[in-house]
């Protein structure tokens, strides 16, 4: 079990880390440290505390109290949403569902680091980003059930969200197809001088697709301002990352193609927001793509059609100490420690 745990997530456990975002950014196309350091702020070993070298000012800049609370509430909503829809699927009311357990901070934090006018391309596990953007629970229920209210008119499988007003391009099942499309959309923005970016989510498995390389390379050569957001969650269905690639995660691929990259603890919502906000600013300033690798962990099975216990040891989660790294727990501790949250609020919100 310990080996299995190490296989799935070893680069995050053994990674060098920094508390300064400037030290985490690496310029594309030039020599880079190996392995790439990971930026974080919230100490996973000491709930409510910041890592050594991080300051309160940094944390407050990452997200002011109101924003941090809003992020936390959205993350709780993700958990509640996932619980309800998972059970609905098991009851036969919805044909399929994908939970985002463990990745609430990665997607909510990333969306919170972007602007509402940025175009967004998604993979399928970013309900946190959709909620932050303004997709309602009704919208999601309509789509999952496939009723007449659903914008796709019942044509697509559950969780294939899309919303024109919110600039969420409709999700498709083939993986990584959105990467070259994101490059094209961003090129459109650049040549018409619009001050906004394209955000493009994808997973560690999708990054193996040819389309992923194509998207990264096209955005780099055409100088298209995409904020690439790679959720490295350790698994692609049953395939751990050690069977997906042998390089140092995904960020070095972007570096090799000439794109600046940063690696961040995807389970630290404050660090994620700070990193993505800085990525957005960098993309807008340079009119070029940037790459953010969100180191996280898929706590749930791949979907309701999957049972992770068939390929994942029961004590893997414990061996990784993942509970201590849980984004919801870490942000809650941070807020409570500073008096922005308490148990009463927790109960009423839940």
């Amino acid at each position: 079990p310990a080996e299995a745990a190490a296989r799935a997530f070893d680069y995050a456990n053994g990674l060098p880390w920094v508390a300064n975002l400037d030290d985490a950014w690496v310029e594309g196309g030039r020599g880079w440290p190996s392995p790439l350091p990971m930026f974080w702020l919230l100490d996973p070993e000491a709930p409510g505390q910041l890592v050594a070298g991080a300051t309160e000012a940094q944390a407050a800049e990452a997200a002011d109290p109101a924003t941090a609370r809003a992020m936390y509430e959205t993350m709780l909503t993700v958990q509640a949403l996932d619980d309800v829809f998972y059970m609905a699927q098991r009851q036969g009311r919805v044909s399929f569902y994908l939970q985002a357990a463990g990745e609430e901070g990665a997607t909510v934090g990333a969306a919170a680091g972007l602007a509402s006018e940025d175009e967004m391309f998604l993979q399928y596990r970013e309900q946190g980003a959709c909620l932050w953007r303004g997709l309602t629970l009704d919208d999601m229920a309509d789509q999952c059930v496939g009723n007449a209210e659903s914008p796709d008119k019942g044509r697509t499988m559950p969780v294939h969200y899309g919303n024109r007003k919110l600039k969420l391009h409709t999700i498709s099942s083939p993986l990584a197809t959105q990467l070259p499309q994101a490059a094209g959309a961003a090129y459109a923005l650049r040549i018409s001088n619009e001050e906004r970016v394209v955000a493009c989510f994808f997973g560690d498995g999708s990054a193996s697709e040819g389309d992923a390389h194509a998207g990264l390379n096209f955005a780099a050569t055409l100088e298209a301002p995409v904020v690439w957001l790679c959720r490295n969650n350790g698994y692609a269905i049953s395939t751990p990352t050690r069977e997906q690639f042998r390089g140092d995660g995904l960020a070095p691929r972007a570096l090799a193609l000439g794109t600046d990259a940063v690696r961040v603890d995807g389970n630290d919502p404050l660090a994620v927001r700070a990193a993505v906000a800085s990525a957005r600013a960098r993309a807008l300033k340079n009119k070029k793509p940037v790459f953010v690798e969100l180191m996280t962990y898929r706590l749930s099975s791949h979907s309701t059609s999957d049972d992770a216990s068939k390929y994942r040891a029961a004590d893997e989660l414990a061996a990784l100490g993942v509970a201590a790294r849980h984004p919801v727990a870490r942000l809650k501790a941070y807020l409570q420690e500073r008096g922005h949250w308490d148990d009463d609020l927790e109960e009423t919100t839940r």
Partner: protein
Amino acid sequence: MRRAALQVRAKFASSPRRLSAAPETSKTSETTRMNLFSAVNASMRSALARDESAVVFGEDVGFGGVFRCTIGLREEFGAQRVFNTPLCEQGIVGLGIGYAAMGRTAIAEIQFADYIFPAYDQIVNEAAKYRYRSGGEFDCGGLTIRTPCGAIGHGGHYHSQSPEAQFAGVAGLKVVMPRGPTQAKGLLTAAINDPNPVIFFEPKALYRASVDDVPDDPDFALPLGQADVVRPGDDVTVVAWGAQVLVAQRAAATAAAERGVECEVIDLQTLAPWDAAAVEASATKTGRLLVTHEAPRTLGFAAEVCAYAAEACFLHLEAPPARVCGLDTPFPLVHEKSYLPTEDKVLAAIYGLVDF
């Protein structure tokens, strides 16, 4: 200056070697005699002038393209709007989808139709379904994909393919193929303007060899989804598209001269959606249908046309619908003439229908 250059090129291209002369058109001052790549060029030029969001991109388009279709465009419209991409067809099409999804016009070039297959997923699973799967919230209707196809005499497996049938059955795509310069300009303009993703196949053998008086009007367009009866006749319906239309016309001329058989030659022009009504009307009239294309016989587009005719015209047919197609082999190099549906094979099939 440009017009003079086009006319000079046209002079060299005006003695076609194996293809018959371009169809008769009026030689008024509102047309310019030009070849097919110049007509394609003219259509893109007017699209770039008319639509400030329009961009042209693909491998090597910047310097003018390996078939000269994009010549002069970068100089006139700038490197932001006419640009080279990395060598990656799935990237080219994906880029075009994303650009078009932002409500803009994307004119993508795939250097040879033989190399379109890396982009097949983006075309079939993404472009064709972008509007449908979003319930109309999003679409990539502004995307047009241009690609040279067909036999060229020495292309072999990977510079000769005609893969139109592998796209024509995909709901959400339009598939178009012109037979000459006038059709190329008119149909390409229509394809670019059409609010759906369109694949525009350009028979490469016609780029220089096919010359015509092409209307100057920058907005000149021909309707998609409409066939063209290029030669009326009462005895046999011959359906073709692209360069094969000229083969069909030659066979029709020989059949008329040799045996007084009058063929009605129809150029489908658009394969998706195809003008079934035109073929039905003609086959009902003649009772004899022949469909001919360079692509291999099995599951080539002739199969669709013949199946439809069997359903719609059964009681009017005097003979089973006939197909004269490429062989079911990869496209060979030195054996090209044996592989292709040449005039003699088409003529034999015409007589076979008449003598059935």
